[in-house]
């Protein structure tokens, strides 16, 4: 169904989410909002890494750019909420484009190193200029849900709706882009840049574009994250966040968008599960403090070991095994092909 009617599918998803948000208790709604945000952030990494082949360990920093832009706009100009998110996307995209210009010349570990340095360097810039509010950051308050939604409509449900609307639109859009010539060019450049360039693709521009879009999405996720915790500060986007996103992308399967939900849910759920386990088995201080980390990391390692391309690819691969190959026809035939109003012919 996803293949044939993406719009309907996404609307269907939206309705399901709406129904869900009405049943869940508030804590789950809050966590659900976070899942929506991670969906966007992980998707942006998948685009960058899985499609264009560029590694980023500093996506947290790009998220921060979007979030700061949104918060500043809100604080100084009291801009409408939707506009702050649009600006978050644009600001982060500009940042991503600049970074992408440098990144386009780099490969593999060099790129990983640069983005890693960005992740630790950028927050310290926030400390440098008082407009960013230093370590304490800026509050990012989008206000109460519209009164028309009723008395019972809690703040977290409002966050949930906003996050998931953004996530659905972003995923809808991204899915199309990845299936268009843009996505195809990214994959081509990833696997053989010389061949791609000879086929007419401007490799540098192509990589920068991927970085720009990815950063824009990250910026959106960053602003949303700032929204759910009402604060934008360096501490909200630590190195650890960048690492978690990379983790989420791998858990989701970097080569396909299909698993983003899985990745996002795991990121949010694992600490919970770990805590539950720790509490069940004695709940000693040492266990409670160390078990979540152990579980997340252990799961991560197991995933790369057992299902490196993610659960969705794993399933596809199983299906694909059945497909068999046919022989090419070598006999010369004259052929006329019609597409739309155009006609091509092998006969001259």
């Amino acid at each position: 169904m996803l293949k044939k009617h993406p719009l309907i599918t996404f609307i269907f998803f939206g309705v399901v989410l709406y129904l869900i948000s009405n049943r869940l208790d508030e804590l789950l709604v809050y966590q659900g909002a976070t899942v929506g945000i991670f969906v966007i952030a992980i998707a942006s990494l998948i685009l960058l890494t899985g499609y264009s082949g560029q590694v980023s360990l500093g996506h947290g920093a790009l998220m921060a750019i979007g979030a700061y832009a949104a918060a500043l706009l809100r604080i100084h100009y009291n801009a409408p909420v939707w506009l702050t998110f649009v600006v978050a996307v644009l600001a982060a995209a500009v940042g991503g484009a600049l970074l992408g210009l440098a990144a386009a010349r780099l490969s593999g570990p060099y790129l990983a190193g640069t983005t890693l340095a960005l992740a630790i360097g950028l927050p310290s810039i926030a400390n440098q200029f008082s407009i960013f509010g230093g370590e304490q950051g800026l509050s990012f308050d989008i206000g109460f849900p519209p009164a028309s939604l009723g008395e019972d409509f809690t703040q977290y449900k409002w966050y949930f709706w906003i996050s998931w609307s953004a996530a659905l639109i972003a995923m809808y859009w991204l899915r199309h882009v990845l299936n268009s010539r843009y996505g195809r060019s990214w994959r081509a450049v990833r696997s053989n840049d010389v061949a791609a360039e000879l086929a007419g693709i401007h490799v540098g521009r192509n990589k920068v574009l991927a970085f720009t879009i990815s950063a824009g999405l990250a910026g959106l996720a960053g602003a949303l994250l700032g929204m759910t915790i009402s604060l934008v500060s360096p501490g909200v986007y630590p190195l650890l966040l960048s690492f978690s996103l990379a983790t989420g992308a791998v858990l989701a399967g970097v080569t396909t968008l299909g698993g983003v939900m899985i990745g996002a849910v795991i990121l949010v759920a694992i600490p919970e599960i770990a805590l539950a386990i720790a509490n069940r088995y004695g709940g000693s201080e040492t266990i409670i403090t160390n078990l979540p980390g152990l579980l997340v990391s252990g799961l991560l390692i197991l995933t790369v070991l057992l299902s490196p391309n993610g659960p969705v690819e794993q399933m596809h691969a199983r299906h694909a095994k059945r497909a068999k190959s046919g022989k090419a026809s070598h006999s010369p035939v004259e052929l006329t092909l019609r597409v739309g109003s155009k006609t091509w012919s092998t006969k001259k």
Partner: protein
Amino acid sequence: MSQFLDMFLIGISAASIYALMAISMVLVWRSTRVVNFAQAGMALLSAYIGYELVSRTGNFWISLPLAMILGAAFSAFIEFFLMRTLLKHSNQGPIAAIAPIIATLGLLGVIRAVIGFIWGHGDVQLEAPLSKVGYKFGDTTLFIGPMGLFVICFVVALLLVVTIVFQKTNIGLALRASAYAPEIAQLSGIRVSGIRTLGWAIAGAAGAAAGILQTVNGTGGLTPESLEFSLLLVFGFIAAVIGGLESLPGAVLGAVILGLVLAFVQIYISGTLVFIVAFILLLAVLILRPQGFLGSKAGRRA
């Protein structure tokens, strides 16, 4: 002038620590084409092991080589049980580029948790075996004492040894060939998997030294999340990348540049700028020379 000398010595001392970390990252990179983000975690674990050894043997100079051996063994163990399987399952496609990064990040988490389980969050301290008080020169005290000097000598010696091993010996050739082209190395009669394990082991020993020396040269305290080690990871990596990742002397050169530039910034400009300057330095080097200072250019493209 005296402040300039201060700056120089401060920069060099910092550089010696970055260099240790950078060397061990370059070693792993050169012998298996993996950037080991768990290197800092392994160094930290080695520092804890060093602490245990010192408290048992009471002698730092026995403990250091012992810890290096254990560090090598642990590193080899990781290669044997983790990286080898990883290589088998994710050796192509986009995952091949990030699987090792992710796996080593995961490893970092596991190591931290394990340290937390074993040593808890209590205070664990490793005393410096040599005085850290600077040498006196006239009536000024230099910013380098026996401990700092030892670390510098250690780095130089390590650099010489590993460089010779890599460039001049058969093992070095085998290490490089296995990293770049495992299949061809196999066809040349090299026991590739063993050689890769060896590469990790050497890096593990260097990393263990880095962990212990950083600890005793710094504050001496250890916690599972010692900030020093997160920063060491990042700054060691930056040094390695500036230097070119491919090259051991490059790693040391990168560390020296980083150390001196940061010392200069701290003393003559502002201590607030270190992180930004480190990032800008990295970016500037990579934009001017994407392969780093001593890295070799990519080969022909078609």
